[in-house]
């Protein structure tokens, strides 16, 4: 089987590893093999963090530039930084206001290469619902609404349920459901050609 390849990016402290684990655990539950690579650099906090994850039978952990199916980014600038890793026809999901993303210079590149980008203020939603630290799983829920790759939203939600500690389980699921709904609206609009 061909692998499905995620590039996940953000800043140190935003829980890129947690996001990787949600996707990886969901893939494991579905019986897939997984292989991924983490790159931290030297920064403890606030540095650029990227994680590669291949679902399916992969041999090498790094995703080749130009071969990633999907980029999920916790930060607008960190989405642009890893743009070269998204394949033509791939997808980008970014934690940013829909009005600002994509930057005009990026928009024409995305068009030329049939890359579709979707933005949602996952951080703002998570903050408003009481848990800004849950922005990572909010982005997973947003991604899950688009039916891309082998991981469906129900399976991702089940993993979030299982991986959330009891005190934050309820609030995490509320954030997941809210962002999943927002994702579904974006997906419908996109299907009707309104982005």
């Amino acid at each position, binding site marked *: 089987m061909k692998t499905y390849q995620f590039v996940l990016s953000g800043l140190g402290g935003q829980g890129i590893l947690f996001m990787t684990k949600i996707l990886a*655990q969901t893939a494991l539950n579905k019986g897939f093999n997984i292989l991924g690579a983490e790159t931290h650099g030297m920064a403890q906090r606030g540095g650029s963090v990227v994680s590669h994850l291949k679902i399916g039978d992969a041999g090498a952990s790094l995703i080749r530039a130009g071969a990633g199916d999907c980029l999920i980014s916790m930060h607008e600038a960190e989405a642009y930084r890893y743009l070269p890793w998204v394949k033509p026809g791939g997808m980008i999901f970014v934690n940013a206001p829909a009005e600002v993303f994509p930057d005009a210079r990026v928009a024409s590149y995305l068009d030329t290469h049939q890359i579709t980008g979707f933005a949602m203020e996952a951080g703002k939603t998570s903050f408003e619902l009481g848990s800004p630290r849950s922005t990572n799983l909010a982005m997973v829920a947003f991604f899950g609404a688009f039916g891309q790759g082998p991981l469906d939203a129900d399976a991702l939600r089940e993993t979030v349920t299982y991986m959330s500690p009891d005190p934050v389980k309820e609030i995490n699921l509320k954030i997941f459901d809210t962002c999943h709904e927002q994702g579904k609206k974006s997906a419908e609009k996109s299907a009707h050609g309104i982005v």
Partner: protein
Amino acid sequence: MKQAFLLGNGAMALGLLEAGCQMLTSYPGTPSSEILPETVRFAKQANLNTVIEWSVNEKVALDNAFAAAISGKRAACCMKMVGLNVAADSFFSAAYIGNIGGLVVISCDDPGPHSSQTEQDSRFMARMAKVPVLDPSSPQEARAMIKTAFEISEQFQVPVLVRPAIRICHARQNIAYDELKNNDTKAVFKREPTRWASTPKFRFLQHKALNEKHVLIAEKFAALAPYNQHNIQPGQAHTLGIVTGGVPSAVVAELLAEFDRTDIPVLKLGAPYPFPASLADPFMDACDRVLVIEETDTVIEYLLGDRRKTFGRLSGHVPMEGELVPEKILAVMNQALSDSDLEPLTHGDNTQEAFVLTTSLDLPVRRPTLCPGCPHRASFYAIRKAVPKAIYPSDIGCYTLGSNLGGVDTVLDMGAGITLASGFWHAFRQDGVDKPIIATMGDSTFFHSGTTGLINAVYNDARFVLVILDNGITAMTGMQPAITQGVRVEGRKGNAIALETIVKGCGVTYLKVVDPYDVKHTIDEIRTAHEWSRSPDGGIAVIIARHPCVIGLRDQGLPETFEVMVTDECDDCGLCHLQFECPAMKRNPEKGKTEIDPVLCSGCGVCLHICPKDAVQCVLKEMT
């Protein structure tokens, strides 16, 4: 069977315990640091009696493991590749002497480099020491290779090196594993001075015996599938073949599969030394040209020994430095295929446009910096204030980032903060120049390699100030316990050793302890220490700047916190965010003054002492 999503370092930890490793020793260093804690975790889960220790340095670690191995037990020692330089004395000698129980050394390479001072290739160290080497291509293979390494080590009574690169160590993979069991082999030491304490006459014989072992191991390696294998059938001829190993061999296999290229044969050498010539020679004979893709240096390329037939680093086809990421390997393969008049895998490079675009966006540069509240920041600020025109030799750890504050002029190797300081002193002294020198070194580095340099400097009458940055933890590599705290792996009790005892024991007579958070006092003490060092009866002055790490020892590091604000007195000089470089202090371009980011601010309160306009004020002081 259990299933886990493990780092390569975790997979190797499993491999060690599955192989019945009875003793594991290590000194932390990226990318190797998680092997030991993962071994602790699995050993605890399975209630094993494995002896596991953080050693003081890599040489000490390897000596300890060697003793267990010559007592008949299975032992391992892990480190980063520059750690193998420290352990080289032990490593080279151990190869001659040999072992009884299996002895496996894991040396993790860092092509890039991502977090190291060199890009050296541990396989070359293995070649020089005449130690067999295995080079895994995935976490799963690394785990399996460790078992093979123990078997070879015991069969031939020679240490074996396993060389995982960072993309093994910090890859994650789902790994299935069985129950782990104790290895009950008992320690037996049979006196045999001609072996264990051999003189040069016997060393010659041991060297001869080692060379004879190599002939046998090379034969074994020639049949060591799937680590060593090729896919050429007898009688076939090819224009171009690829010889590869380790991480790049996995990338090559993926690329050939992705582009459906069955016309390019591959020789994989996951066990490249002793060189399996009887496997490689027929492959070389069947190919007009071969492309060698290996990480990080030219080990296989040299061992193949047919330079005119080889595309690789020596022919300019493969970059001499940097990590061989998949897009680079694709470009290298395309070039070699084109040069051989074969169809490349892809035409053109469609990622260049995106890289050019990304560069043009002027994305924020996120250089590594000390954490908010880091006591080292206060120490470097004080050093610069106290003796502004000094040379600042420093060392390896979080505090290397003191370079951002202008407090780090040199970083050579572990311990060189002190040895370069004494070298600078004598070099300038020779010319009659009294050059101020303020050296820095962390507590863990001091124990690792600082004492010999300090003894040497005292003995040879050098004059400088050494500031030991004591944060009570080995922070850079992931918060391993410090010797000063008397805590061992898994929180077990050890015997604490005070820095003061060691410093005085090295012959230093001037010793002060300060809290760098008390910035004004620290500046005064460093200035006084410098003056004393130059007095007729002076010498080396040591200041221990002691404050617990605010990340690893948060409660001790921040017993009280200060909520601070920037007043209108701020004249936008930028000292706090440009020179002091606190990540929580940012310039607000609209207001033309500094602001505090409350999410990043640790509440350390050090900024209250550094603003030249006194524009940082405390709003609220709290006990935590």
